[in-house]
């Protein structure tokens, strides 16, 4: 079984982002970049399945600028066998990403495609579901547990009401939740080994799909700031303020 894992390079989750003064976006120059956190869970799960002897190959794919190669390299350092970088410039929407991934799927013929449930930059939460629609494959979104059973997957999904379990045929798409597993850190020897693993580079423009943006970003602004609050010195004062000043209890 072959597993393809899509990984995205995003601003690190610990960075307090800043909006550009000209309102065209957020500042990315000299800002720490990392793998989108739930994509780390997706790689981890694929590698664990391979380690359990249930998969033969894990391929990491990223779509983005040249530097997204670092994100692919990180996936190789924690156990992916080889990488693919689809190079693009500028904004690329989830619909375009899913069309490019469809091309990669047609070429690589994986049995499973894993990715994070949502990217923490645009917060769209679309790509996995879109890819599964384009391929007409089953989808298991927001996965917190995956079991392989007789050529099928049993997946536990985190939903607003609690947990849902579904069974899907392979091939399938799974989008991973942060609670799926605990991603490992890359060891130094594995980082060194990853440098020798192959990364195939492709140009998005050569894949024959329309990736032009359909959404015009008119402006990006800072959200309205909350006005500073106060510190209270005791519980009694807190309750008095909530009752008489804020009038919420």
């Amino acid at each position, binding site marked *: 079984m072959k597993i393809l894992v899509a990984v995205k390079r995003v601003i690190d989750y610990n960075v307090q982002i800043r909006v550009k003064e000209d309102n065209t976006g957020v500042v990315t120059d000299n800002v720490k970049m990392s793998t989108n956190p739930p994509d780390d869970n997706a790689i981890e799960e694929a590698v664990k399945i391979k380690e359990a002897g249930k998969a033969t190959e894990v391929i990491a794919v990223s779509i983005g600028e040249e530097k997204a190669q670092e994100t692919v390299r990180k996936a190789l350092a924690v156990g992916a066998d080889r990488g693919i970088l689809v190079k693009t410039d500028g904004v690329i929407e989830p619909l375009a990403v*899913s069309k490019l991934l469809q091309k990669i799927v047609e070429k690589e013929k994986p049995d499973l495609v894993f990715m994070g449930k949502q990217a923490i930059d645009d917060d769209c939460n679309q790509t996995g579901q879109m890819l599964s629609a384009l391929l007409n494959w089953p989808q298991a979104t*927001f996965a917190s547990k995956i079991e392989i059973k007789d050529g099928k997957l049993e997946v536990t999904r985190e939903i607003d009401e609690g947990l849902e379990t579904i069974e899907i045929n392979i091939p399938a798409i799974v989008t991973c939740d942060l609670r799926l597993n605990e991603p490992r850190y890359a060891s130094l020897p594995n980082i060194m080994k990853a440098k020798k693993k192959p990364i195939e580079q492709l140009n998005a423009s050569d894949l024959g799909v329309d990736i032009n943006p359909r959404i015009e970003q008119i402006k990006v602004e800072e959200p309205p700031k909350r006005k500073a609050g106060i510190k209270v010195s005791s519980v009694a004062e807190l309750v008095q303020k909530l009752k008489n000043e804020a009038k919420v209890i």
Partner: protein
Amino acid sequence: MSVLLIAEHNNKEIKPFTLNASTAASQIDNDVHAVIIGHNCDEAAKALSELPLIKKVIQVEAAHYENFVAENFAPVIVKLAENYSHIISSANTFGKNLMPRIAAALDTSQISDIIKVISSDTFLRPIYAGNAFATVKSKDSKKCVTIRPTSFDPCESSGGSAPIEKTDPGEEFSKTKFIKREEVKSDRPELGTARVVVSGGRGMQSGDNFKLITSLADKLNAAIGASRAAVDAGYISNDHQVGQTGKVVVPDLYIAVGISGAIQHLAGMKESKVIVAINKDGEAPIFSVADYGLEADLFEAVPQFLEELNKLNTIQK
């Protein structure tokens, strides 16, 4: 052209966020139709027809729609979509799971989780966990939009009498099978719509200590929330998680107990009207968004809080 709203329901009742989504849909165009897909869902369809904002209800029934599998739902909506300019649903796990499947089939670039309708093609949406707001304009002829329910008021739920039209179901998608749903039943207000939310974080130290949160929530008739750290540590189940990848809540009063206030948690609660933070670390980022901060040991402060509340003659419900 009209707007098609995808109703969320449990086959008996419509879910509360359908009312918020109806409001958002009506801000795009007055002519809002709602589709309800389910099994034995006549009661829910009737309730939907009573929303005064809805001009027509389309009901699609089959056994394979009982459990809301997106692979079964999407083709039904794609087929209906030719008569509509916009497809709308809530940006909760129901809508997040379903809408992109529809958008891809329609070759439309979806706009997720909007917090404001600026015009029929332009919307405001948070990005980077709400640390920036983007104004975006769709250039697609058909628009697929999910709305953040807590950013729109719920519409009136009675007084309307829209006609209910039944449409033939589509085929079953045989490669996905629903097995079970474990819903946490509770008499408390729902987290997404509660007037008061009391949340606990890693500072609670154990699942057992969450009893303190429960007592405070009981007293205030509040829903119970949690930070991701508390859910990851197994103190409480995932349906309580507030934050970028959990639920977004906008209560009148949000009480954060033992929560440090990571960016990802603030994303889910910082629009609350009044925020209280109780934390023994005076430097915790949660204090930067709190209207009232109390630097104290929660294991002393919460019992005192309960005592003080007991002294009050009345507590708002």
